[in-house]
């Protein structure tokens, strides 16, 4: 019956607030939008006359461009503001910045911010719809959704799959959205990484923490590895990149434990040779470039749904 369910959210702040039906709706909509990006004229009029502002307080190439491309393919007018050009550097508060933008009557503000919960704060103070493009160590819903879409496309389903997420779970908003999303759609999620980077409360979120990478990857249908931030080494969270690569990196040997048809995912940008062996990143089981392609489609679906396309 999920096809019948309308998408009723004004904001997309995280996968936590979305039901399984909401997620299925977005995936289905994205699938139908994928074809648009293969046309010669890559544009549909769905959001003509709508104004979309990309408000990015953290550096981002992929996500920002992906949202821009998505909005333009839906015929929305898009504008991008990044921290270096914004008034934030002049000491204005986030709420003031948002209110000023809201006074120009945008329909959607897409926010990337270093602090968890910022999109919710914005949503409370302005009328426009807010889409979270990554907030602190909280959530990155569009990444989580595009990962779900990629897995669904490749595997034909999500329910019942075994998903392993490897790396810095504590600081990864990508991991958080993925754990919540995969768990909601009935996959079994296992995580592994240095114990210093495995947070409390994963079971409540829907994931099982494993002591070793091997245990998490064993029999997995999907292996997702996360970018390790080198600055975590300075915080004594892991001793060296060499040790990380040798003990927590994904390579051919580890992948032998996964199912033969297992796919490899990475949200990018990759530290080649650290969290992922180069031959795997470019190998046949890698769906990393599909993730990027699907990113545009899922963001088109998010923009469409939030503007009432699901009604």
């Amino acid at each position, binding site marked *: 019956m999920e096809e019948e369910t309308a998408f009723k959210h004004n904001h997309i702040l995280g996968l*936590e607030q979305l039901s399984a039906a909401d997620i299925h709706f977005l995936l289905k909509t994205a699938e139908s939008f994928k074809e648009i990006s293969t046309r010669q004229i890559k544009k549909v009029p769905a959001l003509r006359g709508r104004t979309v502002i990309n408000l990015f307080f953290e550096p981002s190439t992929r996500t920002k461009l992906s949202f821009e491309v998505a909005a333009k393919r839906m015929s929305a007018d898009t504008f991008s503001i990044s921290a270096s050009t914004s008034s934030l550097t002049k000491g204005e*508060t986030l709420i003031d910045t948002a209110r000023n933008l809201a006074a120009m009557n945008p329909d959607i503000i897409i926010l990337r911010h270093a*602090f968890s919960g910022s999109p919710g704060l914005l949503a409370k103070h302005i009328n426009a719809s807010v889409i979270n493009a990554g907030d602190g160590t909280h959530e990155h819903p569009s990444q989580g959704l595009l990962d779900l879409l990629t897995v669904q496309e490749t595997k034909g389903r999500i329910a019942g799959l075994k998903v392993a997420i490897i790396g810095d779970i*504590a600081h990864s*908003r990508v991991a*958080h959205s993925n754990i919540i999303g995969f768990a909601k759609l009935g996959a079994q999620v296992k995580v592994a990484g240095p114990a210093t980077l495995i947070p*409390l*409360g994963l079971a409540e979120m829907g994931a099982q923490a494993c002591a070793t990478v091997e245990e998490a990857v064993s029999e997995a249908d999907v292996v997702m590895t996360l970018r390790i931030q080198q600055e975590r080494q300075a915080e004594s969270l892991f001793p060296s990149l060499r040790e990380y690569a040798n003990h927590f990196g994904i390579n051919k040997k580890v992948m032998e434990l996964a199912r033969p048809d297992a796919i490899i995912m990475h949200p990018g940008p990759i530290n080649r040779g650290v969290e992922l062996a180069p031959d795997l990143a470019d190998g046949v089981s890698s769906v990393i470039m599909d993730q990027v392609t699907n990113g545009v489609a899922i963001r088109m679906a998010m923009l469409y749904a939030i503007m009432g396309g699901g009604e």
Partner: protein
Amino acid sequence: MSTLLQNGRIIDPANQIDGRGSILIDQGVIQEIYLDAPPADLPEDCAIIDASNNWLVPGLIDMHVHLREPGQEHKETIASGCKAAVAGGFTAVACMPNSTPINDGQEITIFILAKAAEADLCRVHPVGAISKNSGGSELSEFGELKKAGAVAVSDDGLPVESSQLMRRALEYSGNYDLPVISHSEEMTLSQNGAMNEGALATRLGLRGIPHVAEEIMVYRDIALASYLRRPLHLAHLSTEESIDLVRRAKAKGAMITAETAPHYFTLTEAAVADYDTHAKMNPPLRSEADRQAIRLGIADGTIDAIASDHAPHSQLEKMVEFDLAANGIIGLETSLPLSLALVRDGLITPSRLVELLSLNPARILKVGGGTLAKGAPADITVIDPDSSFCYERQDIVSKSENSPFLGQELQGRAVLTMVAGQVRHTTL
């Protein structure tokens, strides 16, 4: 002119009184306590206040508040803080030294006392800093602080990181009989944390403050105080293990006293769930198990005092991203109603409540008060324990509005606050 507080329930644990009676006040002092009917020959000009629906208790003392003056007057001033205090039923407050500049010497202490005298509302007891500029390296001048009127020392807001400095403070304070108050926090563990560490912090993507960050320092300071045989007061305890540590130390005879704040026995970390910056404080709101342990500690006498940790912040500090928001909530006007809930829940008697909010703070700080003895200064709080009210923004007397209890139905409040015989607040 004399005043008679007539026919109330007098609750005065210092004198083992809990019964109906009247209090005659004149010349700023308690002239007589009548546990039977008052005599017919009262002075002719005696003002009679009917207290038959009320409790008459020794003036409440909040031993842990932040008045923000000097330096952060947009949040609170000594006058506005005192006004909030008497509105909440408090006849005395002890203000922590983390003003700007820090109260680490005579000048600021004298300034605070002068401002308090000017406000002329309630008693203000300045707490001086343990270290110069609360910098954690050199002791401040305890002797000069005491001479100027400071009643205790603490680096509240910041822990004393060096064990050696804490040892010196516990020793040197003995020369001046100055209580030492510990803000117990192991900073390398709590660093940059925004809320209690656990599943909720993970879900919200907020860096957690583990409860052991408090407990390690509680233990360190108990160990030092026990070793040196010196008294020590532990501020705003928030965790189960902290309470256990205090319970064990007391059983061994250590001179340890401890306080908690109403939010720690009323709320849990769940209040943070929507990134509500009004639920951000340090120490952070903890788990339900911690909340229950604190209630137990209050019931069994492990906790000696309830203090609000009244920490005013303006919207500038609170209407921002959770990570950037300042720690702390106002509490002077909600402390009594939230504490009265402990009595209604059957956890403590009214007499024990008065110990927690008046007698014990007076004894720990050695500031007088906490008693309704004949001849004592007439610091008296008249409480209506039953009346319910909705705590609304427009009712707030403090200059700031940062409370997680806004919009909530509270029960019981001070209907009259008398300081040295002067009525400083009344709704009667």
